[in-house]
């Protein structure tokens, strides 16, 4: 305490408390929060998750426990406990404030949800009250910590000072290659665990609590500088990390006992793969395509037509999957070129409108090609049902199989197939982005006139981006036709309340982070899970989704996972900004001196 007052005599906390008290409150509060999860919070198991038993936390209580534990760990690191220094390399307050807020958020959400669901606060046991108060303590402690920049401006600015990441994080001790890989492996396993937990949440309240804790924890880790450190490890071990990610993705169905969750998994993968394809068009080449879902539809319909379904126009034809996949991708590619060739000469807004139109034309055309109002190809609104399951060398994807003691159901099989497809798409994306053609896409996005003046044939490279994006969506569509047993026109619309549709695809790209690999996949996962888990929102889900999107664009326009370029673009943290700021603050100082 003495050394902080020596080095930064002017700092103080937002809540006036001695520094020692603030730290004590943090630690005690963190422990109390974690411990309160072991109490009974309510008297009846009518609230899901059974929060009634002393000694056995259930459902949301585990989330409170996790948040409390994290707060405790960070508090101990702040005390300088040996072995925990790596958690808080910059010794900054932001991670503490954020984990404390995470614990507070999820606990209070739970308590309020209990009162709301069961009709009043009388339904809370003393344990619930204790948890609510305990989770408030670390928040008070965190905002009482002495912090630079507090008290100079408004309360809002002070709070901002608590939550911002410091400019420089001390560099980490170099690890041996084996240790680096061990860390990456551990993080991957942890990530798989967290992700699986989210998919397996059984009721909406648990999912919201999960989102609160995960969001605040990730934010805390980011402000602690741990994300940057991890990115550096990843940069050293790129292919190892990719391999680990791939293994983790494969491992997911083996952790599931209920094929329903594998179904969610396979749908997320389809949605994510298509979003990644769209990311080539929007994120790299900067072409706003509002009708992209049509290409998924082209792939799905093509696969359905050659699947051997008795309702298919070509019911006698049954392609092996590899041929069907190639045909679907090729059909989408042809449609991409047909739609792109006339539209890609347009710029900006015009392109968006025209692609929106083409997207709708696809759906309406498919709806009408039923033999009455058009040629008999797609069965109109009835679609093509009874698409047979895939069969690889006698391995029927439609049946459950026992592999090494694990039972893999139908959806788990398709999930594994989709992991393979996604791996291909990720490979295509990364390789294309880091090449002559990828650079010309980015150049076109940045300044089309300058790009053409540098010798880039704008139309040609845009058409390549469009066609590549289309064929990747088509590829995903061929699997999706088999997963859903049938294809109908309705999902392939511009906007709807469930993914995939063009608006959701675009939102997944923008929300996750344009121009990154992980961003659109994460965005797709979130956008798929939200309507799936929050069924109680029902028809209000689109409204909630809209509000969430506006908030995100206001506070983090570069998306959840920031592209290096966009991070600089939106937050002006480039080198030019730093000297500018110092001159700005210097000026009034000299002016007042001269005046006096």
């Amino acid at each position, binding site marked *: 305490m003495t050394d902080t007052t020596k080095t930064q005599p002017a700092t103080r906390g937002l809540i006036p408390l001695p520094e020692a008290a603030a730290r004590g409150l943090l630690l005690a509060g963190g422990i109390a929060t974690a411990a309160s999860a072991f109490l009974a919070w309510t008297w009846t198991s009518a609230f899901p998750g059974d929060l009634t038993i002393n000694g056995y936390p259930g459902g949301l209580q585990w989330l409170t426990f996790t948040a409390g534990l994290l707060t405790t760990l960070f508090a101990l690191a702040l005390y300088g406990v040996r072995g925990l220094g790596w958690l808080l390399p910059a010794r900054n307050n932001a991670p503490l404030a954020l984990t404390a807020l995470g614990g507070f958020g999820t606990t209070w959400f739970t308590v309020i949800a209990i009162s709301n669901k069961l009709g009043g606060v009388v339904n809370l046991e003393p344990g619930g009250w204790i948890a609510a108060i305990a989770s408030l303590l670390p928040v008070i402690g965190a905002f009482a910590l002495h912090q630079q920049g507090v008290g100079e401006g408004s309360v809002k600015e002070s709070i901002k000072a608590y939550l911002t990441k410091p400019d420089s994080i001390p560099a980490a001790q170099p690890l041996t290659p084996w240790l680096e890989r061990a860390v990456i492996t551990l993080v991957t396993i942890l990530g798989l665990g967290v992700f699986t937990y989210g998919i397996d949440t059984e009721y909406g309240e648990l999912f919201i609590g999960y989102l609160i804790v995960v969001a605040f924890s990730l934010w805390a880790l980011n402000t602690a500088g741990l994300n940057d450190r991890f990115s550096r490890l990843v940069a050293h071990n790129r292919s190892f990390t990719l391999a680990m990610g791939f293994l983790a993705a494969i491992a997911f169905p083996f952790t599931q006992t209920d094929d329903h969750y594998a179904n969610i998994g396979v749908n997320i993968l389809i949605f994510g793969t298509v979003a990644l394809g769209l990311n080539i068009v929007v994120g790299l080449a900067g072409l706003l395509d509002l009708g992209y879902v049509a290409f998924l539809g082209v792939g799905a319909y093509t696969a359905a037509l050659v699947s051997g379904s008795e309702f298919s126009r070509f019911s006698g034809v049954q392609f092996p999957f590899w041929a069907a996949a190639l045909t679907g991708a090729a059909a989408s590619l042809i449609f991409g070129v047909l739609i792109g060739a006339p539209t890609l000469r347009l710029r900006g807004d015009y392109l968006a409108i025209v692609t929106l139109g083409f997207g709708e034309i696809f759906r309406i055309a498919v709806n009408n090609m039923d033999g009455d109002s058009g040629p008999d190809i797609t069965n109109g609104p009835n679609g093509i049902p009874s698409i047979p399951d895939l069969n690889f060398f006698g391995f029927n994807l439609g049946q459950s199989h026992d592999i090494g003691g694990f039972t893999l159901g139908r959806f788990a099989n398709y999930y594994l197939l989709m992991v393979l497809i996604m791996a291909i798409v990720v490979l295509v994306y990364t390789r294309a982005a880091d090449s*002559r053609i990828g650079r010309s896409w980015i150049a076109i996005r940045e300044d089309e006139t300058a790009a053409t*003046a540098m010798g880039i044939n704008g139309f040609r490279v845009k058409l390549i981006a469009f066609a590549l994006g289309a064929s990747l969506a088509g590829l995903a569509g061929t699997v999706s036709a088999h997963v859903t047993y049938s294809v109908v026109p309705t999902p392939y619309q511009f906007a709807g309340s469930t993914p995939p549709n063009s608006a959701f695809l675009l939102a997944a790209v923008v929300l996750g982070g344009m121009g990154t690999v992980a961003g659109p996949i994460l965005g797709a996962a979130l956008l798929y899970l939200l309507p799936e888990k929050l069924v109680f929102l029902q028809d209000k889900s689109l409204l909630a989704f809209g509000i969430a999107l506006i908030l995100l664009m206001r506070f983090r326009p570069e998306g959840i996972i920031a592209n290096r*370029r966009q991070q600089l673009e939106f937050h002006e943290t480039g*080198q030019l900004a730093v000297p500018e700021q110092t001159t700005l603050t210097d000026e009034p100082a000299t002016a007042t001196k001269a005046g006096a």
Partner: protein
Amino acid sequence: MSTMTTPVLEARNVTMRFGGLTAVRSVDFTVNSGEIVGLIGPNGAGKTTFFNCLTGLYVPTEGTVSYKGTVLPPKPHLVTQAGIARTFQNIRLFANMTVLENVLVGRHTRTKEGLWSALLRGPGFKKAEKASEERAMELLEFIGLAHKRDHLARNLPYGEQRKLEIARAMASEPGLLLLDEPTAGMNPQETRATEELVFAIRDKGIAVLLIEHDMRFVFNLSDRVAVLVQGEKLVEGTSEVVQADERVIAAYLGEPFEGEPGEAEAAEVAAAEAEAAAPSTTSTKGEGQ
């Protein structure tokens, strides 16, 4: 020196009309290999428009542009492919790409690796990428920005952005480089450095055509200077000839008067400035007390 006489660029009767406005009027223009040619003229004279006609950004209403004897189609990428590269008056770098990436984009026309080669990553692809990078780094050494290869272009100071734009243009291995006001916004020191740079570019066998408002700079550098006034080529010749020409002086000062209006204007401006300055100083004093 037989090379001195081979024309690199020949513009014949180039006219550019925007509706009723004729921005460039029947301009004939030649640049020979090994030459540095200056193009000057008052604001709005049509210099940039003429550049845009040469590089295919505008399709000239009339006239043709040929490079080394072949008529150029008015398509920017084909012009660059043929061997004419340019910079822009208002810097147009790819702001969110790194310095190195900007120069690599300039290599676009001189490399062929398409999508398939990028996806399959055969030995040919790796070799081509490596060669491109080496060439780009050479250019960055040449303009003195090699140490900033991984900086985002938008974060460079102004003078370095102009230099980077030149390097990016040179990456396309042009026979003719068009520079639109390369020293705009530079301090005298940077301007002198740019002068050296232009000479060095010429010594690499690249002809240079440059638009400039800095007269000392342009007359120092150029083997030949052309003056564009209201879209028409008024005078063309060596620095001495152009500097001595009365019509040029008149064009810069306004309509052909004796020069009095210019003086009167200057006096007016000075008076206004003095007036504007006076109250502001008193007010600051007042605040101080």
